[in-house]
């Protein structure tokens, strides 16, 4: 009897979702599109540095060096410019760097080979407003320019790309963590607050089904939807994008299910705070976005943060999820290696659910 009441609520919620094809389409497609889109578009590799050249005398040595830059896939040659144009070229964004060859470039390079003291042969002026390009590009360009110098104080440098083809999905765990959290929290909080707003919640609450079951019933279809998303993403990644899926898939699935529950509990908690759909949406879609993107280690390494923010980041569930998925998916570690994260996520889920239920019951009285 009790179970039947519960199931009829689940059916009602499912119908809500099915009757609104637009929302269903969004909810089904959005996470998949975003995970795939961001997962494969986002990268911090510096792969395209545009270089302009200033050379008072285009000697054979200079031309050879310029040809080396042009031939390198990491650089795009933007041609020769006048020495007075350096600032203009950089400020208008036509080039990321200007290589300024000394007038006696050849002589200085020869002196260098012989271990004699000579002045600088090339000055690289970088647009350091993009620190990433500047620091990576500088190292790389230095090594390209000195590639055929056998000796000297300057080290030979190189960046090793994709030793294991990892970078193409380096961001995927983070993106999954972000999208699942936001979408699940948003869906549940809004669907509950919506009923509060339209007054249908009152009708449900006077029914013989216990309030908690009503709320649980609201979460079931969204949980199933999320499971569908969870299954689609790796499948598409494998088939469409041909990403080698290594690692413990079952482990990742278990971990993600736990995380989904946590996100739904979060949504429930938000719904107890918000009286209006708009508020629920702003909290779950916007206020949650910042910590989830910024403090979870998704894009910015936690180890670099000041101490206090490192402590704060421990409270962001996404941080633990991302760490665990990275271990399983990218480092290929066994499930036993993520027990700590699983324990933390489970504890968080329990606390959030308890808090949400308590708050929910308080509101009823």
């Amino acid at each position: 009897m009790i179970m039947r009441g519960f199931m009829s609520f689940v059916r009602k919620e499912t119908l809500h979702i099915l009757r609104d094809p637009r929302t269903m389409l969004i909810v089904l497609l959005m996470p998949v599109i975003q995970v795939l889109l961001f997962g494969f578009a986002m990268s911090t590799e510096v792969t395209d540095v545009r270089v302009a050249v200033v050379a008072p005398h285009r000697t054979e040595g200079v031309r050879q060096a310029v040809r080396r830059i042009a031939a390198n896939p990491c650089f795009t040659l933007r041609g020769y410019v006048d020495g007075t144009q350096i600032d203009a070229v950089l400020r208008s964004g036509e080039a990321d760097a200007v290589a300024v060859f000394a007038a006696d470039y050849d002589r200085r390079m020869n002196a260098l080979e012989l271990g004699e003291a000579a002045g600088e042969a090339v000055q690289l002026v970088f647009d350091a407003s993009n620190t990433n390009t500047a620091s990576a590009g500088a190292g790389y360009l230095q090594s390209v320019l000195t590639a055929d110098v056998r000796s000297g104080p300057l080290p030979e440098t190189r960046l090793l790309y994709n030793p294991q083809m990892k970078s193409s999905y380096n961001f995927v765990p983070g993106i999954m963590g972000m999208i699942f959290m936001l979408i699940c929290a948003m869906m549940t909080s809004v669907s509950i607050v919506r009923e509060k707003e339209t007054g249908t919640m009152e009708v449900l609450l006077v029914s013989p089904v216990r309030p908690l079951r009503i709320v649980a019933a609201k979460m079931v279809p969204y949980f199933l939807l999320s499971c569908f998303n969870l299954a689609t993403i790796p499948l598409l990644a494998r088939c469409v994008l041909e990403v080698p899926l290594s690692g413990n898939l079952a482990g990742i699935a278990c971990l993600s299910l736990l995380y989904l529950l946590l996100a739904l509990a979060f949504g429930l908690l938000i719904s107890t705070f918000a009286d209006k759909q708009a508020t629920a949406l702003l909290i779950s879609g916007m206020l949650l976005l910042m910590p989830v993107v910024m403090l979870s280690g998704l894009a910015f390494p936690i180890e670099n943060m000041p101490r206090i923010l490192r402590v704060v980041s421990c409270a962001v569930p996404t941080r633990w999820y991302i760490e665990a998925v990275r271990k399983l998916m990218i480092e290929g570690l066994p499930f036993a290696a993520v027990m700590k994260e699983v324990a933390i996520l489970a504890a968080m889920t329990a606390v959030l659910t308890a808090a949400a239920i308590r708050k929910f019951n308080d509101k009823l009285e």
Partner: protein
Amino acid sequence: MRTLRVLLDKELRQFVRSPFLPKLVLLFPLVVMLVIPWVTTMDVRHIDVAVVDSDRSSASERLVRKIAASDCFTLRGTFDRYDAALAALDEGAADVVVEVPDGFGRSAAGGPAERVRISANGVNAVKGSLGMQYLMQTLTQTLSELRADRGLQPLAEPVVVQNRYNPTLEYRFYMIPALMIMLLIMLCGFLPALNLVGEKETGTIEQINVTPVSRLSFTLAKLIPYWVVGFAVLTLAMLLARIVYGLSPAGSLGAVYLAAALFVFTMSGVGVIAANYSSTMQQTMFVMFFFVMIFMMMSGLITPVESMPGWAKTLTRFLPPRYFVGIMRAVYLKGSTVAELRADYAALAVFAVLSNAWAAASYRKRS
């Protein structure tokens, strides 16, 4: 004009009376500007270094000691062969491999000799390349010291790097203009959309629709408050950037505000479009959320557009914030002028016109 004023008065009162919005508009930028820049520091510490020492001289030992002593590095071990060190890098145990060639000691003593080789993991380019830079500095320093010990002049580096516009490579400065854009994307996109669809849900829009209010004044009355909010938030954020982080725009304020105006127009137009095509708040929010996420993740705010694969780069051409991000960083850090960035400004202007025209056209008083 009168109608517009009356409607604006209404919007303002509703805004102030909302229990949530004024707090959001004030506190959100405050928290974002005060907290997030600390998150985005890229002063990388604890770079894991593996050394392959083929020289085994006192000079190479000195270099290794120096690396081990540095705060920036954690020495992960000395290896005999490059393969072993590379394996460590593959496993993630090391970020950078330093190969000291046989004869390093000789070169340090003054003779010509082979160069040290530094290989960094490019997957985390920031960490890899910064590690490389730090190591180069350490190496140059060691070499100069060694030469000085023997009374030799330090060798000049053949290639020197000058980092213009942000000489200390402060990553925070790169991110702060981007954070301002995030604020504008969220506040000027979400809020008008919510406001408009909120009127649809409560039915108040119908009462407005049977009045002679024109579509233009109604839409404008919805948008103008959020334009004001956008400018206020931007100004607040710029003040905070100046006071807290000592970052002021190198270029003109006019250039910043012009771009911001075009962008805020665009975003609020997008919000109105999303609301006009949806009947429930849930739909609007999901649609907005979809676009806001794409705007945030794909327009170069968090990871650079230049690092994206070709298809993604093409996609970014259709994202208005991409142009704004480029403009803000260039004006803020490089002091670029509107004339220098005219292509980006033009693109933003086109988006502003398109999105607002679409917004006004998609509002139907009659079904």
